[in-house]
């Protein structure tokens, strides 16, 4: 299964940006916490503690803002600037998550914007890379 090469039409972004971002963010942090708890996501939480993150899905007009403490992830309701921001179109984010595409490749091609604390960006990227999906039901979705 390959992610098709599409960009969402601008109308989606203009609608989505008016919707509250909390539900998708909540889903994301719940999933992350589950993965940490089950030991699938080998997060060294002390490296992430106290940091704010933003995933900006450009063509969907959705910004997912979350934070981490020593033990878990939570929805970030604050208005403070994130320590780390990833921004890309939905298809490219999906490719990255499903390991069809290397984040560095997307970055070289300027399809992925990484802003803020560069070292934190590297920690997160390496964290995603080190998840062994073969132990999870998600394995069948992964490209590699």
């Amino acid at each position, binding site marked *: 299964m390959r992610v098709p090469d599409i960009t969402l039409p601008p109308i989606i972004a203009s609608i989505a940006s008016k919707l509250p971002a909390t539900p998708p963010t909540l889903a994301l942090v719940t999933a992350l916490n589950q993965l940490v708890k089950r030991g699938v996501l080998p997060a060294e939480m002390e490296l992430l503690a106290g940091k704010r993150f933003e995933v900006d899905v450009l063509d969907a007009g959705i910004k997912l803002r979350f934070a981490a403490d020593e033990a878990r992830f939570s929805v970030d309701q604050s208005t403070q600037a994130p320590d780390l921001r990833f921004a890309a179109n939905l298809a490219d984010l999906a490719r990255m998550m499903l390991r069809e595409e*290397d984040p560095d490749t997307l970055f070289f091609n300027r399809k992925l914007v990484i802003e803020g604390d560069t070292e934190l960006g590297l*920690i997160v990227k390496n964290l995603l890379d080190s998840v062994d999906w073969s132990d999870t039901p998600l394995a069948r979705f992964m*490209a*590699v």
Partner: protein
Amino acid sequence: MPKLPELVCPAGSLPALKTAIDHGADAVYMGLKNETNARNFAGLNFDEKSATAGIRYAHDKGRKVLMAINTFAQGVDISRWQRAVDQAADLGVDAVILADLGLMDYASRRHPNLRLHMSVQSSATNYEAVNLARDLFGVQRAVLPRVLTLDQVGHVIRHTDVEIEVFGFGSLCVMVEGRCLLSSYATGESPNTHGVCSPAKFVRWEQNGNTTSARLNDILIDQYGQNEPAGYPTLCKGRFEVQGDTYYALEEPTSLNVLEMLPQIIDIGVSAIKVEGRQRSPAYVAQVAKTLREAIDTAGREMQRFSVKPAWQAALGKLAEGQQQTLGAYNRPWK
């Protein structure tokens, strides 16, 4: 058919290791989560548990695992590096890749049966250097820095019985490995001392209108327009001013790619082809391993008749830094 060089792929994580094996690597190289290896990046590399799992995975499929302990032990207390060698031996790796002569000395005495590879960071660019490491420590393979022409690589091979490994694909060091202090000049940390080059904690990206600026410890390395391909903010790949000209004064953001030279590489008797990129993702490892596996096998079969398939070139081109590729020093005109 001539003897094919081993395909040696990078593994920065357990998924990358499995991916490399699944896509045709004959061997993978990995490092521990500390400054004993030259890709000492936050969140990358192996601990005891993942290393054990990785080695088992590789050995079950008849492939090899090499452990890179390729920084230079610092000062008087070098026990961390020695422990890393002991740990590698205990884990049952197929070889350790060492840069520091003192550490090679330790490994050869303490673990006489542990196979030693001389890291590219040892800067062995001629057969006398390689043979010294063989005579002193019984080194069985040397990885050559990316500074020799293909003829010079052949010359080294003809004058030593040590196996020779060369780089085949990945981000290019334009400097002799092990002899580049640019990173520490700007940041205080270098590959030799800390296992890092242009470390992330010193990198700052600044967005100013449509221009992205990359700074390393405040030193401006490069600026990119909106759709200009970017590279790592590695010092040697920045744009600088020399006598009023602003250009890539040392090297473009580019990747080495030896596809078109594979028949010659096989012909001169190279023992292994190494892929750079332990810091890259499993997706990269998969695509490079698969492409090079196919290309090496095809080159071995076809030799003189070999031609590079456009699909391989496209697959690798996409992954290349700055989306540019070069034959590097192997091809004389590059110099």
